[in-house]
């Protein structure tokens, strides 16, 4: 791995990134759900809904949600797998995981397991999950390739990886509006609502640094997945990559 990596638009020592990302999510944890609704104008719910519908998860399946934060995907997966299935909500950040636990209790969702982990080192046996998901988490991971090969390792043959992440839009007009929104309005809203401009500036920058659809697809295939297809959502502002292990 290189000695430096990016943290938003800044170059930082690779070993420091995880700590810097932790700072961001420690800071936003308590307002995370509210900010998500405000900043995406509720669209994150639709993107997640589409992810769940595309998952092909069924009764009895074992599902791991990585970087699961406040648990939106885990809640939906819990419903899909039924009593005979298992859902694990995982995140590197204790504050986010704690918000997730509270959220699930508030919504009356039980039977989800919680694990604090780094996506780069998954403490699970080979070939043990039917589905692994990561929503808006991969761009924060320091070594994405290592994380992808870990996800590949723990999936069963025929298992499905779902990566929901901000991506690149092809439309010049949409890109202009989106850039203006992310670099001007988002940090300001972050300051007004969560008293935290820097974290939302990082959010906007980290999205621009994330690999585009085709690059990420290649990296999923390089990690060992037999198939990978992506679906552009909302004009490519978000993309869902679906990898299948053979």
């Amino acid at each position, binding site marked *: 791995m290189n000695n430096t990596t990016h943290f938003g638009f800044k170059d930082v020592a690779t070993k420091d990134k995880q700590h810097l990302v932790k700072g961001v999510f420690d800071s936003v944890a308590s307002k995370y759900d509210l900010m998500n609704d405000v900043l995406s104008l509720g*669209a994150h*719910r*639709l*993107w997640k*809904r*589409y992810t769940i*519908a*595309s998952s*092909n998860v*069924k*009764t009895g399946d074992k599902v791991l949600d990585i970087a699961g934060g406040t648990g939106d995907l885990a809640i939906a997966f819990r419903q899909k797998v039924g009593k005979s299935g298992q859902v694990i909500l995982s995140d590197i950040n204790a504050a986010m995981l704690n918000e997730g636990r509270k959220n699930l209790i508030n919504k009356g969702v039980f039977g989800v397991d919680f694990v604090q982990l780094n996506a780069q080192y998954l403490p699970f046996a080979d070939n043990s999950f*039917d589905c692994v998901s990561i929503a808006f988490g991969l761009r924060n991971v320091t070594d994405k390739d290592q994380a992808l090969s870990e996800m590949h390792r723990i999936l*069963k*043959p*025929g*298992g*499905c990886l779902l990566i929901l992440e901000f991506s690149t839009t*092809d439309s010049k007009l949409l890109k202009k509006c989106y850039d203006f929104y992310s670099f001007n309005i988002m940090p300001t809203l972050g300051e007004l609502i969560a008293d935290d401009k820097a974290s939302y500036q990082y959010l906007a920058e980290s999205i621009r640094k994330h690999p585009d*659809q*085709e690059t990420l*697809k290649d990296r999923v295939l390089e990690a060992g997945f*037999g*198939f990978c*297809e*992506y*679906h*552009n*959502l*909302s*004009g*490519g502002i*978000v993309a*869902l990559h*679906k990898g*299948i292990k*053979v």
Partner: protein
Amino acid sequence: MQYFALEQALNYLIQTGNLDLKPLDNKTIRFALQDLPIELNFISANGRIFVISDTERQNDVDIRLSAGVFFALFKGEDLTELLKQDKLIIHGDVKTVQCLVDLLHSVDIDLEEVLSHYTGDIIAHKAGKIAKDVKHLVQHSNNPLDALKDGLSQLLIMPTVSKLYKNNRH
């Protein structure tokens, strides 16, 4: 996205025990249409079917045929008869193809409709197609309200698959 409804319908039937996947276990089957830029890959694995549009992988079975023959096949035309008339080329096990064709017959979905956006105005068509998909999913779901919500989400976020996106770039 255009295969979403098909994939959902197949997996719904599998989950409700109405489809036997055994003969297709771990098989990948590609239909490549000669006269449209369309590929349909069926991947049967882990007790479900994935339908994707784009793969560079070697499949177990490759089928080349025209769009007309493709639609005829799924409307009930006899596979052996079509083979005899040299209307399609199959590389791989014909029995596997027959199993998949039988399986697709049990899905009440209009494939012609699923694929037809390649010939028309994409966005205008898409909205209409999603609306039809939603109707279909609502009718064939054990949770119609959920299916309706899924459909409305799709109408708002307009998903498009990778291959289409790639073509748009050039």
